[in-house]
C-alpha cells in the first residue's frame, strides 16, 4: 500500500459561508477565499460527517459516476490547497515579521493640548495612559525635523512614506504642520521618494486659509464627529460643557466644499446613548456631505458611564448590518457607499491578509509625541510605560521586541481556535491595555462581534465577487489607517 492510499482525510480549518446562492470557504491559516463547485461542496459535506481514508473517498466518488482521474483531481486540489488535510497535519505557528521591518507611517502628535474636553478622550479621560507631566505641550520644529529624518531613515527602500498629524487638537499647532509639510516634501524629493500626509481634527479651528492649504497639499482629513447635534454634543464638549456642534458645522461644510483633492472622512465614536448608527450615518453623509464615515465603539474600561454594554453593542451591530446591506446594493450597481467599516474590511479580504499582529503599531508605524518620545502608536504617545525610545536615540529594540512578542497572535492562546484571527489578531493593543492592563491580551469582550462582522463582510465580498468582481479591485490599494 502506498502512502497516499492509506492517507486519511479530515476537514482543514475554514469558515464556510454562502453568498449570491454560491458556496465559499474562508481558509483560515492562509486568509484565502475560494468558491466551491458542486463536487467540492459535496466532498466537504461528506467529510463534515467524519474522517475518511483516501481509498474510501475515491471509491465513493467513482460509484457516483466520477472517472478515476476526475476523482483524483478533485481530492488533489482540495488537499493541496489545505481545504482538506491529513491526520498528521500540524499547524505551523505564524512567523515573526522581519526584525528590521521598514517604517511606513509616522504619527506626529503636534501637541497634546486640546480646546475640547470630550469626556471619553483616551488622552485626557479617565482611562488615559499618557503621563504628560513635565513634558513639552507643543512639538518644536527641531523635534519635527528629527522625526521626518527618522521616518525617511528607517523606511528602507520604500518609495513612499506617510505622515499623520495628530494631537491633542492638531490645528492648535498649525504653523508647525505647515513647516513639516514643506520640510518633509523637500527631503523626500531629494531622495527621489514621495511623502503624503493626513490629519485628524475636531474641526473647531478650520479657516478658509487652512482649508486651502490642506487641499493644495493633498492632505487627507479625518474629522472626529459623533453625528447630529443632539448626539454630537453629548460628549464632544468645550471645557465649560458647551457642545461643539454649532461651531464645527459651518467649518465642516466649508472643508467638504473647498478641499477637493482627497476624500473627507468622519470618524464617529460610539458611546452609551450615541448608538443610533443609521441616523448618524445619514446625517454625516447626506446632510453634511462627508465622503466616508467610519464608526468605532469607545475604548474604555467597562464600568464607565459612557461605555456601551453588551445589549447596546448588539444594537450597534444590527444597525451596522443595515448599512452593510446598503453597501452591497451599491457595490452590485458599481457605486461607492461611504460606510468605511465595510470598505476597510473588504480591502483586507482582497489581499487575504493573515496578521501576526493586529495592526502596524511598532512595526511599520510609530507615534512621536511633542517631547520626541517614540510610542507604538498615537494612542500610547506621552506614556512613560509604553515609550519605545526617543527620536534622538531611535527605537529601543528590546522594548519594541517585548511589545511585539506580547502582541503576537502566537502568544494569544485564546485566539488559536478562532476563524477570524487572520484579520483580528486579538484586536487593538491599546484597547487591550485599557481593558486588561496588558497590551498583549486578546480583546475577549468583542470576539462575537468581530466574528459576526467578519462573516458579514465575507458574504458581501463573496456576493460582489460573483456578480461584479471588477468593483473590488479599487479597494486593493486602500490604506486602512485608523
Amino acid at each position, binding site marked *: 500500500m502506498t502512502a497516499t492510499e492509506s492517507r486519511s482525510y479530515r476537514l482543514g480549518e475554514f469558515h464556510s459561508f454562502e453568498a449570491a446562492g454560491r458556496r465559499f470557504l474562508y481558509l483560515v491559516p492562509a486568509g484565502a477565499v*475560494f468558491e466551491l463547485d458542486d463536487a467540492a461542496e459535496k466532498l466537504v459535506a461528506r467529510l463534515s460527517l467524519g474522517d475518511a481514508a483516501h481509498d474510501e473517498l475515491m471509491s465513493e466518488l467513482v460509484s457516483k459516476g466520477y472517472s478515476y482521474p476526475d476523482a483524483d483531481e478533485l481530492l488533489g486540489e482540495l488537499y493541496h490547497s489545505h481545504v482538506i488535510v491529513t491526520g498528521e497535519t500540524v499547524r505551523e505557528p505564524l512567523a515573526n515579521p522581519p526584525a528590521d521591518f521598514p517604517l511606513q507611517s509616522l504619527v506626529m502628535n503636534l501637541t497634546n493640548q486640546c480646546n475640547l474636553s470630550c469626556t471619553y478622550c483616551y488622552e485626557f479621560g479617565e482611562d488615559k495612559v499618557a503621563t504628560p507631566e513635565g513634558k513639552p505641550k507643543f512639538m518644536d520644529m527641531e523635534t519635527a525635523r528629527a522625526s521626518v529624518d527618522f521616518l525617511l531613515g528607517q523606511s528602507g527602500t520604500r518609495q513612499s512614506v506617510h505622515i499623520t498629524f495628530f494631537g491633542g487638537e492638531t490645528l492648535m499647532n498649525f504653523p508647525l504642520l505647515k513647516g513639516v509639510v514643506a520640510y518633509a516634501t523637500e527631503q523626500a524629493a531629494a531622495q527621489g521618494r514621495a511623502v503624503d500626509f493626513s490629519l485628524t481634527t475636531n474641526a473647531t479651528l478650520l479657516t478658509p486659509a487652512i482649508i486651502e492649504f490642506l487641499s493644495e497639499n493633498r492632505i487627507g482629513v479625518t474629522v472626529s464627529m459623533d453625528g447630529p447635534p443632539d448626539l454630537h454634543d453629548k460628549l464632544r464638549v468645550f471645557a465649560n460643557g458647551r457642545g461643539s456642534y454649532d461651531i464645527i458645522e459651518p467649518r465642516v461644510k466649508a472643508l467638504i466644499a473647498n478641499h477637493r483633492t482627497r476624500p473627507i472622512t468622519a470618524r464617529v465614536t460610539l458611546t452609551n446613548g450615541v448608538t443610533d448608527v443609521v441616523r448618524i450615518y445619514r446625517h454625516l453623509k447626506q446632510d453634511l456631505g462627508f465622503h466616508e464615515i467610519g464608526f468605532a465603539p469607545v475604548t474604555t474600561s467597562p464600568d464607565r458611564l459612557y461605555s456601551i454594554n453588551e445589549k447596546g453593542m448588539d444594537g450597534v451591530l444590527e444597525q451596522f448590518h443595515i448599512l452593510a446591506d446598503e453597501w452591497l446594493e451599491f457595490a452590485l450597481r458599481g457605486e461607492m457607499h461611504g460606510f468605511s467599516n465595510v470598505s476597510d474590511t473588504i480591502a483586507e479580504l482582497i489581499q487575504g491578509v493573515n496578521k501576526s499582529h493586529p495592526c502596524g503599531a511598532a512595526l511599520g508605524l510609530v507615534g512621536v509625541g511633542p517631547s520626541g518620545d517614540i510610542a507604538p502608536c498615537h494612542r500610547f504617545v506621552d506614556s512613560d510605560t509604553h515609550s519605545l525610545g526617543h527620536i534622538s536615540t531611535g527605537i529601543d529594540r528590546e522594548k519594541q521586541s517585548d511589545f511585539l512578542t506580547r502582541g503576537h497572535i502566537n502568544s494569544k492562546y485564546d485566539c488559536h481556535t478562532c476563524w477570524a484571527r487572520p484579520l483580528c489578531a486579538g484586536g487593538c493593543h491599546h484597547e487591550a491595555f485599557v481593558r486588561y492592563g496588558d497590551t498583549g491580551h486578546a480583546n475577549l469582550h468583542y470576539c462575537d462581534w468581530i466574528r459576526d462582522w467578519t462573516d458579514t463582510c465575507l458574504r458581501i465580498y463573496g456576493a460582489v465577487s460573483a456578480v461584479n468582481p471588477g468593483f473590488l479591485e479599487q479597494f486593493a490599494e486602500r490604506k486602512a489607517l485608523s
Partner: protein
Amino acid sequence: MKHIRAVNRKARRIDEIVLAQKAAASQPAGTEADVIALQQQQQQRPHVPIGCTLSFSPGWEVDSAGGTAGLCQPVERDIYDCYVTCFWPAQVPDHLNNYPDWANKCASATKDWRNLDLVTP
C-alpha cells in the same frame, strides 16, 4: 483549479503554487507522498521543559507556543514538587511554618492536582 475558484489575491497565490506543483510532478496530484526520502525534516514536537519536577506534576503545563502565558491560571505559583521535596525557595506556600496543609488534599498529583489552590497570605 477546476473545482475551487480563487476569489482573492491570497487564494490566487495558492492556486498558482498548486498548479506549479502539479506541473512539476509527472504524476497525478495527490500522490506525491508515495515517494518518501530517507531523511525527512524533523517534525515539530511540543516543548517539554526539563527540571527536577516529575513531568506529570502540576506546574509544568505549557501552552501551544511553549510558554505559560496562554494557560488558564498562573501555574508558576503552584509547582507542586517544589513544595516539600525541594530545598530551593520557590513560588509555593511555605510548608514548614504557615501552610503545612496545602497539599493535604492532593494524594496523587496526576489525579488531585485541582485541589492545589492559591493561598492568600
